[in-house]
């Protein structure tokens, strides 16, 4: 199937909008595939290698398809000292996938992020942008259980 990138046309095709273009693609597709890179490079008239250079620089851009539920475990300073590594450990064990991976069924993916800005509720994680705070093992397992049902 050939992807349709018509939504890019809302953005003015000048090189300073390249990052916005990549963000639009990721917002739409969930990640940036090889084909997307070609499409973006063509639209903004930048060399493919430069496009890939820009996208690989920024942590936000994903090159693999994420799961239906994207778990972001915050590893900001406050969360870290409150035990975020353990939370990642528990989730990894429970779902059988490591940081940065997506499960075989495409349901869950996990990644650690630098800071969600909810430090006063540390440790926190977010599922598709919804933030859960003051986690311990019980709360974490409950969240996973609820999303497994969905």
């Amino acid at each position, binding site marked *: 199937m050939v992807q349709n990138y018509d939504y890019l046309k809302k953005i003015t095709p*000048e*090189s*300073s*909008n*390249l*990052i*916005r273009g*990549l*963000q639009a693609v990721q917002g739409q597709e969930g990640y940036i595939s090889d084909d997307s890179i070609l499409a973006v490079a063509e639209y*903004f008239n930048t060399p493919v290698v430069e496009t890939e*250079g*820009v996208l690989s*620089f*920024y*942590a*936000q*851009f994903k090159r693999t398809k994420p799961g239906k539920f994207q778990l972001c475990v915050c*590893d*900001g*300073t*406050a969360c*870290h*000292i*409150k*035990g975020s590594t*353990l939370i990642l*450990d*528990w989730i990894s*064990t429970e779902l059988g996938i490591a940081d940065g991976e997506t499960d075989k069924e495409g349901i869950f993916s996990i990644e650690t*992020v*630098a*800071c*969600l*800005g*909810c*430090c*006063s*509720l*540390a440790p*926190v994680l977010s599922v598709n*942008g919804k*933030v*859960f*705070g*003051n986690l*311990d*093992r*019980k709360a974490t397992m409950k969240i996973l259980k609820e999303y497994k049902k969905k």
Partner: protein
Amino acid sequence: MTINNKIKKIKVGMASCGIAAGAEDVLNILKEHSADILIDEVGCFGHCYCEPVVEIETSDGESIIYSHVAANEKSIANILELGEDGRFEINPKRKAKELLKVTRLAGVIDPTSYEEYVENGGYVGLKKALAMNKEELIDEVKKSGLRGRGGGGFPTGMKWGFLAAKKAEQKILICNADEGDPGAFMDRSLMESVPHQVLEGMLIAAYATGSTRIFIYCRAEYPLAIKHLNIAIEQIKEHKLNIIDGRDIDIFVKEGAGAFVCGEETALIHSLEGQRGTPRFRPPFPTDSGWKGYPTMINNVETFGNIPYLIAEGAESYASVGSEGSKGTKLFALAGDLDNPGLVEVPMGISLREIVFDIGGADPEKTKAVQTGGPSGGCIPVELFDSLVDYDSLKALGAIMGSGGMIIIGKNRCMVETARYFLDFTHRESCGKCTFCRVGTKRMFETLERITAGEGLVEDLDFLAEMGPKVIKGSLCGLGQTAPNPVLATLRYYRHEYENHVNNKQCEALSCDKLVDIELNKDKCIECKLCIKNCPVDAVSDDFVIDNNKCTRCNTCIEVCPKDTIFRVKKGEGFYSE
């Protein structure tokens, strides 16, 4: 439900921290039952520890705050009856120490309402500024003594003067909202709660410097802040406030894409140009040649947030608050090991003791240190908490003011592990341009990994002490120039912890996994088998003995044990370990 007829208005704290604590559900139940009473969705009032928060304004002009509001009918019924349960009083110690200037309206007004901002003194500063001539205005900012709140502490008025002096067809103003320091959330809170105030500051700056275009470079991780800014920008355009000197000023919000180094001016500009966010050599400074070659000035969110009231009240009144070299108030984001994490605004020159203990509610007995300035800063041990909080005093201690993140570190945390954590962050975030930053931070990180794994050598400590200053000297931008700070500061104040890891292979805080064992106290055990069932690696035997060779130190058993019979001990003191 019965509704007390004194209720005039209901306010629900709907900033990110409130939403994370469940404010959305509370709001929905309130909406169902509050009939036609006005419900305002307000921002964050700084007391994040008691979210979700509901505030009731009564017809007597009284304000009643309910904290930790549960999202159920019973708790909402209690609020609507103005019941006594769950009422919240601000700790008097905190009330006495804080000084709300920049955050005066945060959590008080609806961030998406232009009218509420104006009713509460909004855009008074802009009007006053537009009536002044530009030199006067810049002089006013210079006289106030305001210094950049992003961490650098450069005098704001001087920077404005540099840009104003430039003659160019276009001049660019950038608001640095790429709050990348993990553990800081001052800028998020301001943008979410009082977006108009931040924008008012920018419009005043645009007038003073003759800027033609404004960019707000905001982290993509702050969707609510971006939403509120965009709403406010539309309202500004509706009311034609962006027409200054007869010229339409374009205001854009640009989303960052997750790179800590983009907090650095020249890197941020590269990113805005759609390139990799690497810094470049200065000079030329951005005010000479910045975005696409135009003169460009970058200020931080909080700096802009200070401007409206600075102008409205005047420089003299502004400078009456603060210490010798640091004027005005400062926002701090308190998090970590304390009772009352949240956002606080205090006058510069207050002591650390007052912030951490009186306001934050940390336990003096259990506190080891405070980390200021995030990964670029350093730790300050509890013994030095009488030090004053301003740009110069903190620098003298080997820490920095930074943007305002303060992480309180308890006695049960390992300082070597904390340093390792920060270097893990900075070595990954290094853009790779400067060799000393790229390789130096990586080697320092690897050394710290070895030490926390119990494989460190005495020479490693010398290596860290020697490499740190070299990375500082050999790096172009603030990232590399500050990255070794957490290591150097912990080495300075907590060398004994490093030595204990290296010489005795012990971690006093029982935090470094490779240096601890897990032990089960059989005398207290009730044999519920929860640990056996939950252990992911089957390290607990049928007769409740933990095999520390199998155990991954994931703490699952400790968390599930109902009787607290399982705990961490120094390596070699648990069963089955070699």
